[in-house]
């Protein structure tokens, strides 16, 4: 058994888990953060994407022990103070989700994508960078639209602050 301590969504947490426990299992089973989903066994669908130390990673392809000491952000920690994150808002306004199962991973991936590219994101880049996130409902059309809208809003806000 490993003693795992990490910061999750700004809160220090700790727990005991077998060494083979995946980060996604630790989040879901130990911490009850069921927003992070498992959609495949081969590290391809991206339903489990969370941020570890600011990077988007697949929490099904990382042991909880590997994330020991890290700063983890999940979909549950994205909104702050009751305010939706601009990416969450854009998914809502642009109907970027249907069944909602891939949505947490999509939103976490999109947030990191926008952080890296800013307002300069274009449709081609968004589609290429969604390679690691599979959605079966939306045909991606409105997901792409939502990410571009959020990039505009976040990039615009960034520019205004600078």
């Amino acid at each position, binding site marked *: 058994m490993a003693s795992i301590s990490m910061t999750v969504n700004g809160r220090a947490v700790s727990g005991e888990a077998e060494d083979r426990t995946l980060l996604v299992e630790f989040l879901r089973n130990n911490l009850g953060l069921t927003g992070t989903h498992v959609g495949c066994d081969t590290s391809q669908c*991206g339903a489990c994407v969370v941020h570890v130390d600011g990077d*988007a*990673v697949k929490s099904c392809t*990382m042991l909880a022990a*590997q994330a020991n000491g890290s700063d983890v952000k999940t979909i549950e920690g994205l909104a702050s103070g009751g305010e939706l994150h601009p990416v969450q808002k854009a998914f809502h306004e642009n109907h970027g989700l249907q069944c909602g199962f891939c949505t947490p991973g999509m939103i976490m*991936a999109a947030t990191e994508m926008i952080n890296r590219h800013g307002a300069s994101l274009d449709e081609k880049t968004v589609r290429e*960078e969604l*390679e690691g996130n599979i959605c079966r409902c939306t045909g991606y059309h409105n997901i792409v639209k939502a990410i571009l809208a959020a990039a505009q809003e976040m990039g615009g806000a960034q520019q205004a602050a600078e």
Partner: protein
Amino acid sequence: MYKTTYHRASSVEEAASLISGADDGKLLAGGQTLIPTMKQRLAAPSDVVDLRHIADLKGISVAGSTVTIGAGTTHADVANSAEVRSACPALADLASNIGDPHVRNMGTIGGSIANNDPAADYPAAMVALNATIHTNSRQIGADDFFTGMFETALNDGEIITAVSFDAPEKAAYQKFPNPASRYAMAGVFVAKSGGGVRVGVTGAGSDGVFRASNMESALSASFSGGALDGASVDPSDMLSDLHGSSEYRANLVKVMAKRAVEAAG
């Protein structure tokens, strides 16, 4: 996943000691292949030794024309490195197309070449760049390092610390991805330098990464796409599966090689 014991190393020496003390241990770099393999119960290491927190394994440096990349450097870091982009843009491009963004944030160059997946991208570049693989005990030339599908010259417990190569005059990588997995079905890295032209091919060969020597000769004589018109790729040397017959892969190798030469300029 079978039971395993996790160890975190903070130095190469500690990692070497941990792995030598393990029954049937595995080095864990970015884990983007090892963890899925363990999840599918196709690997059952008694111990895993995490290399991700070893500072000495990370980083990129350029001295003169020699580029050195720490084994623990992630694909994302290679893709975004201004030094790599300037010395060998083809390698930055290659890194920026490995897997997906989440995989690139974790996966490392050392992990990729140590695994030597026949469809991985880095081995083609290492071979074409005539890179040197540095380990905690020796240096190995790329031609000697990759010894067959999932096989390398590494001894048990030997740890890759870095790779280095001389920046080529011209180079480019063209990948044809498997439509499902997005791994290379044919990836061709072409590099031209003072020593001639080297062509590394991944994804297609039935024994893993290989050098296309007939293409190398043709391109040494004339570095142009047209020089490859007469170059043949023998389908009997190619992999064949659901996604690509050996004939199709042979065609892809030639097409990707020509496009790589054209992209290299």
